[in-house]
Structures are given as structure tokens and as C-alpha cells.
């Protein structure tokens, strides 16, 4: 047993912190999804993304031959932690491209697709920004029931349908689209395909969906006879479901970076309590300690998941376990943090004013965004169902 990072990883951690010091404004705390809110935020995020690309950190987990860093599991873990702690912007350029589009193309893409799209992502190029079209109005948790169709007509697919909750679509050059290429299949997850669609395509319209705080993360997309060349099909036609599941499994490490973000907020809250002379208040002390325990617990579990993957052990329920705990932890961190901030926890996150927003508004940001996160990539309840079925081998309850 050993629960420490090696010297190599600690060295890497210092290197990341050096990067932070050089490239981020002093005291900067990046908040999740914030980079997509405004053009200004986005420009800054992309400028950092390009610097990350130079370090190969933008595609840290990619093999070197595709322009990645080919990092070890533990380097990736350290990077995710630090990325969360510092809130490094531009880290995934909207997530899709670096996290699953690139890796999926390496597995299922044609040589032409690989050569066309992969380098743009790895370079942090604006044309390397992707979004992902999975969810539809009537298929959320029940993803396989999606209805957007792609009909083969000559050398093209004609796409019709609607996608929703598409984050980063307003910044993306391409969309990684799940659609139905065969109708009336025996099972609903048959007949699906993954197709690459240029966001500039004719017939594709975007409707921004602001969240209730005023932030812009989600979009609605309408496909009205959108014509896409057949070479944009990824992998095998009608075999999209298994490719999609593979792609979903690349979406890991959320708990790791969230853990880092929680440590940062805890650190900041402790300092805040010291500065405002509340550190001796027994309630503040107990609350902070309580958070510290839960954060340490989440971190250790997410390390265990990473370790299992690293050991090539079968990892089935663990990411769901970590996600479910992470959802609950973020809610708790933000709630307890808000209680400590008191009246200052009511600040507007779209209109931060250093006179009023304590901790640069990060507690309030998590307060509202933890909800979005609990919903995204499978709600907490969905994760619980997965854990029950695959972690505890209990019968299906839904």
C-alpha cells in the first residue's frame, strides 16, 4: 500500500504551478463553465488553451503520436487535481474534443478524419473546438431513445431533428452527433451512428439556452435537412451505440478535478475565516473540518478508481460512485461555504464585484453550478442505479 504520489508526479505538480503563476492573474480562481459565458472569457480561455497545447497538457492523456503528452495515469491525476484547484481555463476547450472526440477518432476514425481533426484539437485551435450532440428533448437519462435522423441520400446524410443541452455549441466548430441511421430496429439502441457535423452547415440553427442565473452554457440545436458528406460517418454505420458507450467511458476525471476545486474552496474558506476572525467560532471550525473529511474521502476514492484503471482492472461502477459522491460533495461545499459567507453568499455570479463577492464569487458559483453538474452526464440517481446494478449486482429498479 502506498497513498503518496511519486517524486515524478510531485515534480510535475510544481511545473503546473509554475505555469499557473506565469499565466494566470494573481489570485485567479477559475469556475467551471464560466469560460463559455462571454466572448471575453472565451478568448482568455483559448489563449491559455494554446499555451497548454504547447506543453502538450491540453491533450495530456493522448498518445504522443497524435500530439498528446502520453502522460502516466498519475500524471493525469495530478493534472486533473491541479486544474481543479487553480481553475485553469481552456483546459478542455469545451471538453468534447480533447476528452472523447479525439480518442474516439483514434479508435474508430478513418485516416483522413484523424489527419483533419486531431491536430486542430491538439493545437488548441479555434477549429479544434467541439461540442457533443447526444441529449434530445425526450431522451435524457434514456439516451438510446434518441430520434434525430440521418438519412443516406447519395454521398450525403441528410440530418433532421433536434438536440438540446448542448454545451459549448456556441463556441464549437464541429459537433459530434449521435443520430439514428436506421428506423424501426428491434431494440432502441440499434441503428444509431456517430457523425461529424460542421457547425457552419446550412440548415443548422442554434438557440442559446441561458441558465436561471443568466449564464450561457447550454444550447438547443435544430437540424433541418442538414447535408453532411458520408465521409463524416465515424466508424461503422448503425454501430454507433457501442462507439458512443466507449466515448462516454472516456469522460473520466471529473471527480478528480472537482476534488481539486473543493480543496481550493476549503483553503480559501479557512483563510477567509481567519481574516474575518471567525476561525474560533466552533460552528465554522466543525463545518470546515467536516468538509475536509468529505473532500479527502472523495479524493481517495477517485484515486482508487484511477489506480484500478492503471492496473488494467475492470472499472465498472467506480466512476459512478465517484460522480455520485462528487455531486453531493459539491452541494455540501457550496452550502456550508455559503453559510460561512453569510449575507455575502447572495451575490450575483454574472456580475461579480470584488467589493461584495468574497472568494471571487467561487462559492456562489459552485452553489448554482453544482446543480448543473448533478444533472449532467447522468444524474446522481442515475449513477446510483448504475452502482446498484453493476457494483452490488442488484436487480434493475427502473
Amino acid at each position, binding site marked *: 500500500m502506498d497513498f503518496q504520489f511519486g517524486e515524478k508526479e510531485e515534480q510535475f505538480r510544481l511545473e503546473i504551478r509554475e505555469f499557473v503563476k506565469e499565466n494566470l492573474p494573481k489570485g485567479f480562481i477559475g469556475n467551471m463553465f464560466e469560460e463559455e459565458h462571454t466572448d471575453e472569457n472565451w478568448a482568455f480561455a483559448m489563449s491559455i488553451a494554446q499555451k497548454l497545447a504547447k506543453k502538450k497538457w491540453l491533450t495530456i492523456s493522448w498518445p504522443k503520436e497524435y500530439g498528446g503528452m502520453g502522460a502516466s495515469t498519475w500524471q493525469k491525476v495530478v493534472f486533473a487535481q491541479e486544474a481543479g484547484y487553480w481553475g485553469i481555463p481552456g483546459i478542455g476547450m469545451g471538453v468534447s474534443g480533447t476528452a472523447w472526440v479525439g480518442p474516439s477518432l483514434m479508435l474508430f476514425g478513418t485516416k483522413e478524419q484523424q489527419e483533419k481533426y486531431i491536430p486542430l484539437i491538439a493545437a488548441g485551435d479555434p477549429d479544434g473546438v467541439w461540442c457533443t450532440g447526444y441529449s434530445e428533448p425526450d431522451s435524457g437519462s434514456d439516451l438510446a431513445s434518441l430520434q434525430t435522423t440521418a438519412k443516406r441520400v447519395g454521398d450525403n446524410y441528410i440530418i433532421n431533428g433536434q438536440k438540446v443541452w448542448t454545451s459549448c455549441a456556441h463556441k464549437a466548430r464541429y459537433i459530434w452527433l449521435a443520430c439514428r441511421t436506421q428506423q424501426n430496429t428491434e431494440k432502441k439502441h440499434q441503428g444509431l451512428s456517430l457523425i461529424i457535423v460542421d457547425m457552419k452547415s446550412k440548415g443548422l440553427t442554434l438557440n442559446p439556452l441561458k441558465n436561471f442565473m443568466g449564464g450561457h452554457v447550454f444550447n438547443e440545436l435544430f437540424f433541418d435537412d442538414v447535408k453532411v458528406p458520408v465521409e463524416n460517418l465515424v466508424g461503422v454505420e448503425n454501430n454507433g451505440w457501442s462507439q458512443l458507450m466507449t466515448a462516454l467511458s472516456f469522460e473520466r476525471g471529473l471527480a478528480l478535478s472537482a476534488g481539486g476545486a473543493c480543496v481550493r474552496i476549503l483553503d480559501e474558506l479557512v483563510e477567509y475565516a481567519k481574516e474575518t476572525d471567525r476561525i474560533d467560532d466552533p460552528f465554522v471550525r466543525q463545518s470546515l473540518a467536516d468538509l475536509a473529511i468529505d473532500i479527502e474521502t472523495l479524493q481517495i476514492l477517485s484515486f482508487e478508481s484511477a489506480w484500478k484503471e492503471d492496473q488494467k482492472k475492470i472499472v465498472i461502477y467506480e466512476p459512478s460512485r465517484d460522480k455520485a459522491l462528487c455531486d453531493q460533495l459539491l452541494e455540501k461545499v457550496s452550502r456550508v461555504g455559503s453559510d460561512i459567507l453569510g449575507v455575502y453568499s447572495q451575490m*450575483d455570479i454574472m456580475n461579480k*464585484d470584488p467589493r461584495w463577492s468574497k472568494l471571487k464569487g467561487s462559492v456562489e458559483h459552485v452553489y448554482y453550478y453544482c446543480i448543473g453538474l448533478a444533472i449532467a452526464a447522468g444524474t446522481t440517481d442515475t449513477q*446510483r442505479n448504475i452502482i446498484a446494478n453493476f457494483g452490488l449486482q442488484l436487480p434493475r*429498479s427502473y
Partner: protein
Amino acid sequence: MDFSLGVEQKLIQKSVREFFTKECPKDKVRELKETKSGFDSKMWKKLVKLGYLGLIFPEEYGGTEGEFLDLMIFMEELGRNITPCPFFTTVALCGIPIVKFGTDEQKKAILPKIIEKGHIWTLAQTEKKANNYSNEIELTADLSGDNYVLNGTKLFVPFANSAKQILVVARTQKGKDANHGITLFMVDAKTKGINIEVIPTAAKDCRCEIVFKDVKVPKENILGTKDKGWEIVDYIFQQASVLKAAEMSGGCQAVFDIIVNYTKERKQFNRSIASFQAIQHRLVDFMGRIEGLKFLVRKAACEISTGNSSARLNSMAKASANKIYHDLCYHSIVLHGAIGWTEEMDIGLYHLRTRSLLFDMGDVHFHKEKIADELQFHSPAFKEVYS
């Protein structure tokens, strides 16, 4: 014992609900967030015209002398509809203590203007410690001739930017006992030296910073007795805690209705998601808590109405509201899935108010401390019977 609303209350409930539904639909609530005043002055005028500002004030000043219960029902409906307006600040935070502690002259001068003209009042109490204890009051008022001169800063004062008059909690004397030496001044918001700035809050509910710089207030503008103002603040808190809890209770009922309806309608895996046991049980647990809150608030209000105001119950009402509101909003939005997070759904409007509601009139910790006080000095039945 009688858990039903009286005829009067039923009438108020019905009319106020209809009024708000018509005059302030949720899209209006959204729009008002983007305005300077944060509320709809036309609706305010209608409220005045319908006599709601005088709901519980004495007839001699133009009111209809209703019960405190009527006001509680009004606040439930206001909270149910999350109607932004300075009703609470004017009536609960200022009107009520003026009726109790004001001189006849003051009442004659002030109350008719509130009731008939809709003059807006607010209470400036919070300062930077923001703990609702008397030791947070540092704004000074020093006598100079016929005037007191006020210096200091008040924070998060609701609707101060629209107020005609501000009830200011000031320190006229410093000493060992922080409760002593506090005086309440009624200050014209236009007085020279007052600077008001709106603080950017999530709910955009016009919480203001007020800086007082050598603000002169005539000494007859004291409410109650000099140096003994903390009693008035306590009086305000007792009643306003219950009214704020009523507002939150109404909000909880509305949110619960929204989420129950949504889960019944929303289908996944070919089933209404309300058929999933984990969701059902979460809803069920909320129902119990919300019903409990509703009656706790009503009981506290009832005791105030009959002149038996109970500090224990008043604090329980607010603490209980605080305990439920956040959890309910959080889980209700999550149960909606992504759509719950969007601007177009009403649920988010409720959640944007969570943090300010929690701190208005005291957080859970504050009220539990008050309850502990009551427990400590209460003589239990077993000691009496077995003595």
C-alpha cells in the same frame, strides 16, 4: 384546536393569490430583475388602492385593522408567487413597530401615508458583522443641537433605493452591554449625506448599501426611547421572522407543486419518473417537512394574533423554513434534469432567492440559539409534578 383558515383569511388568500397571479406573472418577475427599482410601481399602486398596505393597521390611521394572521396569509401568497415588492420592508419591518412604539403624532404623520399613498419604508440594520446581534451596530448617532448626526454604513438594506423613509438602527451610546445604547431613527431617504448603492445580488432584489456621512436627523424622529431601541429591534424580529417564514413557506408550497407536477408528467424509460421509488420517497419526505413548516408558521402567527407571541415558536418557524428551502430548491431542480436549470423554468427564480431568504431575519444558527435560550429558562413539567 382548529387548523382551518378563518373566513377572513380564506378571502385574503383567494384574492391575493388571484391578484398576484394576474398582476405579477413569472415573466414579470423575470423582467423586474432587470429594472432599477426591482418592483412594479403600477402593481404597488394597485396594492395600495386595494388597501393591502393597511391590512393590519388601526382604523384611525386608515387601516382595516385585520389580524396578524391576515398578514401571515398575505406573506404566504407573496412568497408563493415570489412577488418582488417592498411590502415586507414597509409593513413588517417599519409599519408594525411604528404602530407599537410610535407617538400618536408620529403615527398620524406616517401611517396614512403608507396606507393611502404607498410610501415605501425600509429598515437599515445590518452592518458588516451581519450577525443580527446588537454588537454589529456601530453606526453612530451623536446629538448636536436639535439634531442627531449619523455616520456609518448599512448593508443589504432591501429596497433602500426606492424608500421614502429609512428606519435606522444606530448606536447612541457605547458600553459593556451592547443591547443598551441603541436608538432607532426615522430618516428621510433624501437627507443630505445619504448615499445609496444597489448591491449586485443573485435575486436582483435591490439590497442596498447605505453610507451615512454627517446625516442630520431631527431629534424628534426617534422611534421609541433613546438608547432602548434594541427592544424595538427584538419586537420587529419576533414578528418579521414569522412573516418571512410565511413567505418562505408559501415559496416551498409553490416549488413542491411544481416538482410534483413535473415528475408526474415527465417520462423516461416509458414511465412517469414519479413512479421511481427513490424520487417518490424524496417527494414524500419533502411533503412532510413542508406541511410541518406550514403549520408551524401558522401556529406562531396565531399566537401573535392572540397576543401570546412565543419567541420559541417564532424562531422555530424561521429556522424550519431555512432548513427546508435550500434542500427543496436544490433537489427540485435536479429532479427536473437540465430543463430545471434554464431561465425559462420558474423553479430557478425561487432558488435565486434562497440565500437572501435564509439570512433575512436570522439564519438557522441564530434562531436555534434563541430556542436554546427558551429551553434553558423553561421549567419542565416533570420537575413540577415530581417536585
